[in-house]
Structure formats: C-alpha cells, structure tokens
C-alpha cells in the first residue's frame, strides 16, 4: 500500500514538474505577402476548408486547443507543428520555386486523396477539420487546377 502511495506521489510530482517546462507557441498576427490564400485567392469555401483543416500545423499561426496548456500534450503538439511547417508552410507559399510548388501540390493531392492528411490524431478532436468526401473533392480539384496552371 505504501509503495502505491509513493509511486502515485512520484507521478504527481513529475506531472506537476513538467508543467513548468517551456513550450514555444506557434503564433503570429502577421500574414505574409507570400501566403497561399493571398497569392492564389481561392473561392471562399476553399479558403475556409484550408484554414480549418490545414493551417493549424502548416502556417505560422495555430489556433490552440485548451489541452495545449497541459504537458505532455503541449510537447506533442509542438513537435507536430514543427514537422508540419517544415514539410509545408502555407504562409511561405510564394517563396517556393515553381518546381517546389509543383512538388508540394502533388503531395497535397496525394495525401488528401489517401486520407493521410489531415492527420487522424488531429481530426479525432477537431471534428471540423475532418474533410467530408465532397470537401475532399473540392480541395483536390482546386489543387489540381493550380498544378495544371504551373505546368
């Protein structure tokens, strides 16, 4: 019994301890001129879909959920966002060369088609971010059109 108490206490202290560890928030008020939505000016419904389903991890500004206040989830999110931005940052779209835009569009299309993006761990809680079948088609067709214009 005593051991259980000690273990519980240790866990509690650890949990409290890690709450003090710093995380860097991915937040910015500035939307750069290179932003995907500014440059391509897609129809309203597409903009909304991209902002809801992609921008949290693929831009410089995340709309954080409440559980980001708690460790270790905050780390988990921090890593995901860092990885996401490294792969693709919609805010920096126009800074990519045409060659890279083409590659990115190809990846966006195939990832959305295969239901790999948005991540299921993300849509589990962000129900709004999940793309319905018709929304998927909207996004894919739009990205294909952009890709066609590049070639």
């Amino acid at each position, binding site marked *: 019994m005593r051991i259980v108490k000690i273990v519980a206490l240790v866990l509690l*202290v650890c949990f409290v*301890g890690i709450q003090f*560890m710093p995380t860097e928030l991915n937040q910015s008020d500035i939307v750069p001129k290179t932003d995907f939505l500014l440059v391509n000016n897609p129809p309203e419904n597409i903009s909304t879909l991209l902002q809801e389903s992609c921008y949290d991890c693929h831009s410089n500004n995340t709309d954080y959920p409440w559980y980001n206040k708690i460790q270790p989830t905050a780390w988990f999110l921090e890593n995901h966002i860092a990885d996401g931005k490294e792969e693709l940052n919609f805010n920096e779209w126009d800074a990519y060369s045409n060659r*890279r835009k083409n590659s990115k569009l*190809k990846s966006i299309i195939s990832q959305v088609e295969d239901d790999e993006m948005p991540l299921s761990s993300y849509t589990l809680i962000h129900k709004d971010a999940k793309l319905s079948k018709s929304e998927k088609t909207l996004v894919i067709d739009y990205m294909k059109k952009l890709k066609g214009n590049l070639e």
Partner: protein
Amino acid sequence: MKKVRLTTTIMVMAFLSLTAMSCKDVKKEDVNDNTMHSEMNHDKMNASNDMMDSNSQNSDAQKVLADYMALKDALVETDKDKAAKAGNKLNNTLSEFDISNYTAEQQKELKDIITDAKEHAEHIGKSEMDHQREHFKTLSKDIMDMVAITGTENTLYQQFCPMYDGGSAWLSMNKDIKNPYYGSKMLKCGKVQKEIN
C-alpha cells in the same frame, strides 16, 4: 518521521525533473555541435574540391547520378530498405553539390532543382515503398533537368512507362527496360524515350 520522508521524496523528484530538463538542453547543444562539425567537414570538403581539377564540378553531377542509379536499382528490386538508404545517400550528395562554376542563371535553376530533389530523396529515406515510388517520379524529373544543365559522362537512357501515374519517366544507364515503378510485377513495361549523351 513520515513527513520527513515525504519531503525527501518530493525533493528528490524535483531534483530529478530539473535534471531531466537540463538533459533536454544538453541534447540540444549536442545537436548544435553536430551541425557545426558537419559544416566544418563541409568546408574541408569544399577546400579539397577546389584543389581538384576543373572537372570536379562535373564529378559532383556524376556522383548525384551514381546515387540516383543506385536508388533506381533498389526500386527495381522492390527493396524498401535499400531504397531508403540510397535516398539518404543521395540527399547527402546533393547537399555537397558545388554549383559555383555555373552561370548565374544555371545556378538559380540548379539551386531550385537541388532543393526539390533533396526533399524527395529525404522522403524516400523514410517512406513506404509506394511513397518512395511517388517521390521517385518527381525526383526523376529533377535529375533529368539537372542533366540538361550539367551534361553527363555516360550515355543515359530516358525511359518511360505509360501505366504508372498517367505516365512516368526515369533515367537508366542501360538500354534494357527494368521498370522501377513496378519492379518484378511489370519489369519490362516501358520504352526508351530518348538517348542522352
């Protein structure tokens, strides 16, 4: 007595979590150190490249081609791990590509090509077979565009399979078709599109 023990436990835990925190920082420093080392190595390599004859640039392109061919062969064999290894190697070789002797316009184009190709090579290094092949398609386009600028010492064959993803090309040193997009499933699917000298 009980209280004392409790306080000690808490102190120990606090100490441990602090140590954990500092460990995290140390790890970061290590990473920084590593990047510094690799930069230094890079400098050294550049220096030794400069010492080599004027062919050294062309040999950078040759190295990229050699790695690309190794990757292509791994895909023909449908060997995921081998392809991943080849992808990582290609990524490194691309990082070391010295483009300084090309014209400004060529440099810009090469830079774009290398940035894009590196990303594909990196993904091939960590993906499943079907993704590796998807990236290989775009990578092949990059390498073909690179060869258009750098030229090649060996004769290359641009080959084309009309079935994969609406038609996909690749480069080979060999006239015979060995399809990297399907491997043994459809090894002979494709034809020579162009001979590049």
